[in-house]
């Protein structure tokens, strides 16, 4: 480069050039500038409101005036855990969340494995779209559609009757706890809708994790004498565990927090989400609502600790 062209480059667009040089030489400052909006959002709006929620749960409501007394007390938590009805709600929600998570994992694994390992590129694209397609539809539409599908005279019972297996359905509905007058008004029906709703959240991280397991590792396992079942237990499952953990965090926490599905489909028993909705809305008991919403946070923390102990994140 001649000195004349070099001078031209330095002179050209000098202000923009100086700003660019300024940022280039102070990369930390530049990074900070980029991170400021998300940090502000996360810090104040997100964590701030979470903190406010936590604080509310340590307040209690005055029985006479029905106003919140801003004084730190454990009375609300005492109320939460001393009422057998509240404990029932927590156990019911927890049981449902565990069942939904296990069922989602069981259904998602074969499909995710097929998508990650065996499907042709076209088939894979088709399946990914197929898995995500339901998420583009309104949540409420899907829930109400399911209520119709599961209704006593609904399409599902019609199909089962036509195929001739309605005794199975009747036996399931006669089963205590999960049964009921119809699928639409039983925990079994609610379970089906939950699994349907959260399945994509399990399939996608699981497929991503399985895709990262190199083919040569699976072949190495077979090469060393492992039968397909052994390869699955010893190699595929441990390496897919981070994806399984990620997916189960979604299905578990979404079930713990949901209040629409339990109020549209299923037996009349309350769920945590419904209690939060009712306590902070109709009942106006913000502290109790806050205490209820702390429960899923604790349950998920316990779940994550257990998953970590079991080595779910070792392969990350």
């Amino acid at each position: 480069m001649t000195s004349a062209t070099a001078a031209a480059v330095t002179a050209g667009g000098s202000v923009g050039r100086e700003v660019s040089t300024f940022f280039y030489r102070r990369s930390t400052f530049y990074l900070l500038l980029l991170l400021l909006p998300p940090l502000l959002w996360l810090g104040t709006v997100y964590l701030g409101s979470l903190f406010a929620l936590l604080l509310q749960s340590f307040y209690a409501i005055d029985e006479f005036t029905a106003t919140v007394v801003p004084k730190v007390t454990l009375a609300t938590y005492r109320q939460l855990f001393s009422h057998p009805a509240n404990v029932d709600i927590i156990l019911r929600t927890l049981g449902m969340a565990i069942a939904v998570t296990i069922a989602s994992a069981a259904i998602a694994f074969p499909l995710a494995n097929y998508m990650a390992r065996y499907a042709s590129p076209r088939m894979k694209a088709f399946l990914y779209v197929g898995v995500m397609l339901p998420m583009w539809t309104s949540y409420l539409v899907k829930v109400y559609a399911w209520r119709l599908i599961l209704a006593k005279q609904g399409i599902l019972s019609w199909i089962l009757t036509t195929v001739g297996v309605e005794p199975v359905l009747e036996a399931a509905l006669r089963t205590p706890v999960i049964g009921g007058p119809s699928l639409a008004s039983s925990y079994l029906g609610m379970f089906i809708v939950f699994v349907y709703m959260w399945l994509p959240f399990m399939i996608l991280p699981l497929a991503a994790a399985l895709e990262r397991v190199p083919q040569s590792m699976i072949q190495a396992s077979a090469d060393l004498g492992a039968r397909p079942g052994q390869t699955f237990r010893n190699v595929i499952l441990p390496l897919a565990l981070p994806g399984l953990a990620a997916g189960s965090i979604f299905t578990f926490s979404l079930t713990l927090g949901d209040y629409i599905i339990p109020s549209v489909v299923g037996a009349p028993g309350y769920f945590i989400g419904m209690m939060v909705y009712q306590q902070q809305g109709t009942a106006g008991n913000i502290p109790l609502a806050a205490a209820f919403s702390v429960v899923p946070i604790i349950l998920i923390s316990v779940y994550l600790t257990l998953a970590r102990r079991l080595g779910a994140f070792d392969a990350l």
Partner: protein
Amino acid sequence: MPAAIEFLKVSRRFGSVKAVDEVDLTIAPGEFFALLGPSGSGKTTCLRLIAGFEQPSSGHVLLDAADVTGVPPYERNVNTVFQDYALFPHMSVAENVAYGLRVRGVASEERRKRAEEMLALVQLEGMGERSPLQLSGGQKQRVALARALINHPAVLLLDEPLGALDLKLREAMQIELKNLQRKLKITFVYVTHDQGEALSMADRVAVFDRGRIEQLDTPRGLYMRPRTAFVARFVGGANVVEGELAQRLNGTARAFAIRAEAMALDGAARDGAVGCAATVIDVQYHGASSRWQVRTEDGSVLAVVRPESGSGSTHHEIGSKVFVSWPANQMVPLEAT
């Protein structure tokens, strides 16, 4: 003794591509056998057919005289060292090595003992507790080797095992692998695209091109008597003279090979030698030798390798007119392909 591995008219097609095309092959027990060829020549597919990761589209693969067509990898007495090592990241080095015993239900105390023995064999004593992620490339290579050998396979398959290592380490590992094979007396089938590796290690080499075996011979046989132009160029880096120039020099249009180090480079024509006038177009100094590229008058490019004489008298600059020649008995006639 039956052959360790036998291919009977084995083909493997992927859609319309014939990766392996009617290959017949016999590998003797205890042999160090190399499959050599450029990428896409079918050598790795052959290895995978022996391991059982691929099934032949037609033909039969025999291991120890038994037809294994349709037998899954986990029922074959054959183990593989993978190109990317394929060590399990969620297991320790010792667990990786003992994996073959674990899936066969060997008790954990026995597993631990034999894994330690295997690690000693590959000079990794006391590394059992480490994670494979903490190891260097050469160490991973040794762990993969120990893991593949723990089941005492009849055949060890090695898929470009040294490809990811640097030159120094690669040379050391070549010697080590060869010694290991002599000691264990296991059949080694070694896939490589590096002709030097194949020539220096193998008892016999099969040269692959486009799914077929071009030539199957000892390293010396391949080097001294290449059958086709492909083998002459790929294995020996030899000059292939064909067409008009061959006609003029040899009296026949049939192509012949002439090794670069069999050629002489002089300022003037030599009496009694076969040769022609040429112009130097490139010189590479290699220390012990130098390599010249010369262009003959009809436009063919030939390579000449001469040992370093020390005096510098044999040096010819780029552009200088020279005369290349070789003894007539060094010309190897080639088959038309």
